[in-house]
């Protein structure tokens, strides 16, 4: 007799667990946390970009109403250790600095003091009463200035502003370039800011009696934060707990050990009271991290048929005044180096990377941190097509690695497997209907209308193949998860992830509920509390969750299920292999009449125990990086450029991508659209701009332009599914949109202008109008 099929929740856009609280205003974000006897902390920050900090006159401020304490570097001595990049990172300059500026300030926004008061208003009033004396120093406001030995070094313990340099050859670039045609591109894109809608913050609660410190933090990496704080504050790890409430977006900005986190925790220790710090938007724009501050020169050796023989890439990165701990200045280059050949058949690469410090905010990981590789490569591919008089799709077609060539090692190390880049290109070209567009473009040109079509093809390591980490010089522990049967037969899944919009409470529940055989509502996903969750350096980031967290949750759940079936097998005197769980009932396969409710098994497990088990039934599992692990796709878009004003409008935007199977289709689409929106912002609107003296000019939303609903088109999305290479065929998708959108828009605008050379972002109307003039269209 046939049994009800076990409900399968995966592959459906089920109701999100998170929505109940989010839609009713019952989320609990950092600013919603209120503890008894709590003090409010605000930071006093440097108003100048570079100078000696000679005095902080805080006496008047200390005497104001409600002020409890004013903490400077002096008060932190002995409480918080000095900071620097980890000693085990090779070949990188590691200047030493403090959580609060001590001898110097090095960027506008550098934190100088934390003012603690009974109310936020009082703390800000006191801040206004503090007078800071500086001796201004010459500023280092660009990579060029950082390269100039005549400019001062930012630190006494480094003699230049060069932090790291590397140069490598893969294959034989000399031979490949010899006698070949060379096509070049260069890019000096702007600094951008992450701009999560929720700013950073933390509530530190140090208990004077026990010495325990609980830190509520807006973080995407709670264990890494705990590890960092433990070291800097000499806080024993068993007495330190990081708890992550709901987090309002991060995009990589909340993966750091912020200097502010250190100061706030130290402040709680010093004051003997809880301390809350929530930055305002000005601080978030000015003093939190920025990204994409790099310049690139790229050259390709090509043959007359458009085959790309070799690349020569010179990347210079400006990481700001302080490393964004725990990431060393040498973090980003190797990833860009590894990824720059992308899904293309390019065997030879000459690579050079230099990293500089400047009087600017720190460079933080931002959604697809290595994205510059796709930006310059895809723009170069279109440039190659233009110079050779070939169709950009054809150039890609000739150079993309085909499925029948895989598995194939990239010149830079990782193995390409299951990469359907070529298929996504063909489908995107079909969807956008190139031929029809070219006819339309010619017709439009005749009427003075400028239409353009661009393509961009990319891959992202989501999480990448097992040999990816070695290629970029990183080592990450395998992902872990725990599954625990509760006394009522429900299931708790404890993940190392720290979601901030990724819907893991839902997607991991879908996987666990499907595997276990219970209703979706019987599964609860726990995250973000270091006291409960397994260790992970990353938390949520790097597009690893879909594969790694899912795999770990799946295996942990499967292990608990195995124990349940064993117990039930004993009780029913049936082999566990003949049992199944359907809708929370353990039964012989196909025989619901003889089933035992899961709750009964759970009760037995808790009351009677099982040999070798802790209470109840609990299993942990790790999941190792499986083969394949690449997501990717092709973006295609059509723009219209107003030839009189330079305004760019997106007429059509198409995405064909492959991220394997979809756990929750709406979640996947949301990630793609959100990523593209940030990419459009990068291409057309956003600029975390400094002037020539490193004064920051984009501190408010009046100057930093985040796209609104009017700037983001309705994006057409199609999914391809490569065949599973591993048990878990879900792959990450969070970063691709932000990676591919800037180059696709550059290529479309360039095409609208008959092949213009674009080397700057954002493409403001003024910039585009100048290109229109140059192109003579």
């Amino acid at each position, binding site marked *: 007799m046939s049994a009800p099929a076990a409900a399968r929740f995966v592959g459906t856009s089920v109701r999100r667990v998170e929505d109940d609280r989010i839609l009713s205003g019952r989320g609990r974000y950092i600013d919603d946390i209120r503890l008894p006897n709590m003090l409010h902390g605000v930071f006093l920050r440097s108003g100048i970009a570079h100078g000696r900090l000679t005095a902080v006159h805080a006496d008047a401020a200390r005497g104001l109403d409600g002020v409890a304490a004013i903490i400077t570097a002096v008060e932190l001595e002995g409480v918080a250790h000095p900071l620097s990049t980890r000693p085990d990172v090779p070949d990188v300059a590691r200047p030493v600095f403090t959580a609060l500026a001590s001898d110097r300030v090095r960027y506008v926004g550098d934190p100088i003091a934390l003012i603690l008061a009974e109310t*936020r*208003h009082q703390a*800000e*009033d006191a801040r*206004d009463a503090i007078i800071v004396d500086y001796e201004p120093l010459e500023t280092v406001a660009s990579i060029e200035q950082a390269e100039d030995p005549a400019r001062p070094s930012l630190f006494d313990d480094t003699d230049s502003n060069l932090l790291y340099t590397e140069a490598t050859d893969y294959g034989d670039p000399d031979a490949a370039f010899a006698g070949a045609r060379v096509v070049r591109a260069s890019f000096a894109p702007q600094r951008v800011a992450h701009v999560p809608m929720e700013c950073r913050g933390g509530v530190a609660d140090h208990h004077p009696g026990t010495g325990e410190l609980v830190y509520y933090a807006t973080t995407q990496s709670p264990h890494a934060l705990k590890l960092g704080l433990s070291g800097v504050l000499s806080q024993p790890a068993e007495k330190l707990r990081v708890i992550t409430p709901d987090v309002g977006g991060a995009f990589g900005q909340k993966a750091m050990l912020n200097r502010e986190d250190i100061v706030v925790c130290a402040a709680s220790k010093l004051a003997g009271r809880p301390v809350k710090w929530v930055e*305002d938007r*000005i601080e978030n724009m000015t003093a939190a991290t920025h990204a994409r501050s790099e310049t690139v020169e790229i050259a390709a050796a090509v043959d007359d048929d458009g085959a790309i023989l070799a690349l020569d890439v010179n990347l210079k990165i400006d990481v700001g005044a302080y490393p964004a701990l725990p990431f060393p200045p040498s973090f980003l280059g190797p990833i860009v180096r590894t990824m720059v050949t992308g899904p293309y058949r390019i065997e030879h690469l000459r690579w050079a990377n230099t990293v500089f410090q400047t009087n600017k905010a720190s460079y933080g990981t931002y959604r697809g941190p290595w994205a510059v590789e796709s930006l310059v490569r895809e723009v170069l591919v279109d440039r190659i097509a233009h110079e050779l008089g070939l169709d950009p799709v054809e150039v890609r077609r000739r150079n993309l690695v085909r499925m029948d060539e895989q598995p194939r090692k990239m010149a830079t190390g990782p193995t390409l497997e299951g990469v359907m880049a070529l298929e996504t290109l063909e489908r995107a070209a079909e969807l956008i209907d190139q031929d029809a567009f070219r006819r339309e473009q010619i017709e439009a040109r005749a009427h003075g209308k400028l239409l353009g079509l661009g393509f961009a093809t990319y891959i992202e390591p989501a999480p990448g193949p097992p040999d990816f980490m070695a290629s970029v010089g990183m080592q990450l522990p395998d992902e872990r998860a725990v599954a625990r049967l509760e006394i009522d037969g429900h299931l708790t899944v404890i993940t190392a992830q720290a979601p901030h919009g990724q819907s893991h409470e839902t997607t991991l529940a879908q996987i666990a509920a499907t595997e276990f055989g219970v209703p979706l509502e019987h599964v609860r996903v726990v995250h973000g509390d270091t006291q409960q969750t397994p260790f992970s350096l990353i938390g949520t980031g790097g597009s690893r969750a879909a594969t790694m967290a899912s795999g770990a949750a799946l295996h942990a759940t499967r292990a608990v299920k195995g124990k349940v079936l064993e117990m039930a097998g004993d009780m029913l005197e049936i082999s566990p292999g003949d049992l199944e769980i359907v809708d929370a009932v353990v039964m012989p396969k196909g025989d619901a009449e003889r089933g035992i409710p899961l709750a009964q098994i759970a009760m037995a497990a808790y009351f009677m125990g099982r040999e070798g088990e802790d209470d109840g039934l609990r299993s942990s599992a790790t999941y190792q990086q499986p083969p394949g692990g690449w997501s990717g796709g092709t973006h295609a878009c059509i723009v219209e450029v107003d030839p*009189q*004003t330079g*305004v760019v409008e997106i007429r059509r935007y198409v995405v064909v991508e492959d991220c394997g199977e979809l756990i929750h289709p709406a979640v996947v689409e949301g990630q793609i659209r959100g990523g593209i929106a940030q990419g459009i912002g990068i291409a057309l*609107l956003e*600029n975390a*701009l400094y002037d020539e003296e490193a004064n920051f*000019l*984009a501190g*408010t939303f*009046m*100057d930093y*332009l985040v*796209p*609104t609903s*009017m*700037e983001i088109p309705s994006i057409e999305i199609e999914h391809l599914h490569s065949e599973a290479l591993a048990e878990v065929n879900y792959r990450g998708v969070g970063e691709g949109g932000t990676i591919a959108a800037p180059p696709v828009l550059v290529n479309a605008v360039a095409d609208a202008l008959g092949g213009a050379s674009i080397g700057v972002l954002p493409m*403001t*109307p*003024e910039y585009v*109008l100048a290109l229109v003039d140059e192109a003579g269209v």
Partner: protein
Amino acid sequence: MKPPAFRYLAPRSLEEALALRAEHAGDSAVLAGGQSLMPLLNLRMAFPGTLIDVGHVNELVGIREWDGGVAIGAMTRQRAAERSTLIDERAPLVAKALPNIGHPAIRNRGTVGGSIAHADPAAELPAVALALDAELVAASSSGERTIRASDFFAGYLTTSLAPDELLVEIRLPGLAAGHGSAFVELARRHGDFALVGVGAAVALDDAGAIADARLVFIGVAGAPVRAHAAEALLRGAMPTDEAYAEAAELAKDAIDPGSDAHASGAYRRRVAGVLAQRALREATP
């Protein structure tokens, strides 16, 4: 960020408001819609000793017929003005300009008088007041006076209001029926302050020639700029693209926009000319 401390006063009548304004002249700010002032307070970019909230002074609210045109109380919300059929009929350039101001939530609270008294050079309402030869009525505890729009806007965020005065009414002479109007802006995003914008109104005579033309620019100087020479050129001319192009050139000659992080003066000037032509074409009945 939280506002600094201030003394808060909420007069219930115009007389009371004017008395307070006189008493605290020089160290008070007027809170009308708050859409411009509150950001300054929250960002601690303004430190008025006293805040005079005129939100309860009902005499300042209202839209009425005035001398063939329309008079708008200073505390009339922009959203109410947007919905007013009287304004739509008698001052359609206002109706065209209003939807460009920010977003509905801003227009729900923001006031017509507040925008005009704030005098941001990229704001639409000051430009419309200038284009329509508005009369701004200012009151103080010593009486009332009428200031012509051309004398009102003195420069960046500066008007000719005295420290003890309040703007109480904006009187807009009616444009003869048959005027077309347009307000065209270039902003980086929808609803942003314009990089440059143009308001235009055109009326034709029975022969189809231009009987009246109004042309005003925002974002090109410290205050809105009326293109008098261009208007004079257009009067009597036929409404052709060539005439509009010539007028735009003349208008461009009269402006010298400054540069900032968003756009250079040269770009603003060039686009001002482009938008002038587009606005004139759209405003042509």
